């Protein structure tokens, strides 16, 4: 049926069909949808706010008793009722840093392998195998860590590092100490293995989502595989890759069970990574159920609140860094 204007001139016949409504009047369906999704997003805010407030409330006694000193005191005496958060905060940051430093390059490598290198028949099984690492319950990491990995580290790894890395200037003191096996290095390593599959899974998915035309154009211009990844895939997926790293970082900051078994729960500060330390999550897990005075319980909950604060600061710094990177590349983040 011809609706178009008569090409021999003359007026077009009157329109019989209403043109589709312009996007501005979105209709009831759209309003409901936007409202529903917005409400769910608000729920995230509420949940988070509730948890943070609950922690702040519970930790009030500790904050009032110790004041700001709580943040840099390394006391932890349950009998004398003196508590300080420095050692757990330090341990949380150090073990997560070790975990990210180890996990990100390896995840990146695995994601490259899975998307670019591996033949099609190998991709599925290897990808599944890496995901298996995510399927292992975190408590098994703790138990495996305690009963299998720690003896290995104590017998082979730490003595070797004492001899070869502990003697180097500057970083030497970090890697020397009594080879007992438990400590921040072991905990950081186990965390790295734990967060590896999360970062890899997301990286692999997003690398696969890069439009083929973009990659093919780069190849047509003579790029090597690595150049395609670094100049095309990474920039395209930068936000998602950073998201993957945040996923892993988040996991490692809050990981409780795996770290609890192998960190040693020592409340003394020491520079060496071989020494036992403490993390906020491990301190709470190790001591909460046995805490026998209100100040003790309050101090532990205050630690939980401080973890929110630490996470806030770490993430804010990371986002600032990203913003700066984005501006340097001239892209809108």
């Amino acid at each position: 049926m011809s609706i178009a204007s008569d090409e021999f001139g003359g007026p077009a016949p009157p329109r019989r069909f209403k043109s589709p409504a312009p996007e501005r009047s979105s209709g009831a369906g759209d309003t409901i949808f936007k409202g529903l999704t917005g409400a769910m997003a608000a729920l995230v805010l509420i949940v988070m706010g509730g948890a943070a407030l609950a922690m702040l409330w519970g930790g009030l006694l500790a904050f009032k008793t110790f004041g700001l000193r709580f943040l840099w005191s390394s006391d932890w005496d349950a009998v004398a009722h003196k508590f300080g958060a420095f050692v757990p905060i330090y341990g949380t940051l150090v073990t997560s840093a070790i975990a990210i430093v180890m996990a990100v390059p390896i995840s990146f490598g695995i994601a490259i392998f899975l998307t670019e290198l591996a033949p099609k028949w190998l991709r599925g099984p290897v990808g599944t195998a890496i995901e298996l690492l995510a399927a292992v319950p975190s408590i098994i990491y703790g138990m495996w860590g305690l009963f299998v990995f720690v003896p290995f580290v104590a017998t082979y790894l730490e003595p070797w590092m004492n001899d070869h890395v502990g003697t180097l200037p500057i970083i030497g003191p970090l890697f020397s100490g009594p080879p007992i096996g438990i400590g921040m290095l072991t905990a950081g390593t186990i965390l790295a293995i734990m967060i590896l599959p999360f970062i890899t899974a997301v990286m692999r998915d997003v690398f696969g989502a890069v439009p083929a035309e973009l990659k093919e154009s780069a190849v047509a211009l003579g790029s090597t595989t690595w150049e395609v990844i670094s100049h095309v895939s990474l920039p395209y997926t930068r936000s998602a890759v950073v998201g993957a790293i945040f996923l892993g970082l988040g996991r490692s900051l809050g990981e409780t069970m795996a770290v609890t078994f192998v960190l040693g729960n020592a409340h003394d500060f020491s520079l060496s990574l071989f020494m036992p330390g403490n993390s906020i999550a491990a301190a709470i897990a190790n001591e909460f159920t046995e805490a026998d005075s209100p100040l003790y319980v309050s101090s532990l909950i205050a630690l939980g609140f401080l973890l929110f604060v630490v996470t806030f600061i770490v993430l804010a710094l990371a986002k600032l860094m990203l913003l700066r990177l984005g501006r340097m590349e001239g892209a809108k983040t």
Partner: protein
Amino acid sequence: MLRTILAVMAVATVAGAAGAEQITGAGSTFVYPVLSKWSADYSVKFGDKVNYQSIGSGGGISQIKAGTVDFGATDKPLSPVELAASGLAQFPVVIGAISPVVNIAGVRPGQMKFSGPLLADIYLGRIKKWNDPGIRALNPGVPLPNAAITCVHRSDGSGTTYNWAYYLGQVSPVWKAKVGAGTSVQWPVGVGGKGNEGVAAFVNQIPNSIGYVEYAYVIQNHMKYGLVRNSAGRFIGPTVAGFQAAAATAHWAHAKDFFLVMTNAPSAAGYPITATTFVLMYKHPKNAARSAAALKFFKWSFEHGQADAAALDYVSLPPVLVKQIERYWATQIK
């Protein structure tokens, strides 16, 4: 085997249908194995299901205070003042012991002899090597090396630590002043292992180390335990006879609400680091039926659970103590 399962299931279902109670308890990890065994046997016979979970003594105290469980269990007894403030009653439920264990080449289980003050000095870091004169004096003939002692303690809060530290405080004024007793203390020296398993694993791994574990772990892991000198001056090893002797002489009769830590009991043949776990229940419970059912369970366990307890390396309460507890129930818990 299958028939046993079906029979058990049938009994359980019938008992379930007959309105069996589900009673919840939580607290000390020390008693978890024996309570779960008693509970399993009790539920087969009587239908009521007593679900006890180990979340730690502190957890047991806070949950019973919050009223989320029907009874709590704690290794550290509450004082009568605290009990009165919360309307709680308290009574001991089973006896266990804590043993020092070592890992020294050439030393056999039961060979090392310790005194209380010696253990305190080792854990204070004042005695640093195995061939220290203090240790040698008690252990002539034992091949003690010229090596540093690695002390292993608990990294998590624990009633076991509480009893161990309490004992050390009883026998060493320096320990009492410097460290004190708690489920978690500021250890002067040493490394921390998670749970009794963690301590046992570290002692087994680290040469020239010493640790402290519950008796059940000593037996199950075949560890090299040491003898401890009791207040009468005799070196006693962790045996059921030793635990029972200690329990018999502890001053229960004079303890209001059984508020007594029974380490260092004044018994000639008693093992000095014997400890008991306490159950906390409301004197005027909100749910009287479940409370009464729980008491019936404990009564049965006291009177018929000795074999179960012994099989798991625990010691049942002596009959005198049981009578005292039952009198306490009659007067305190309505």
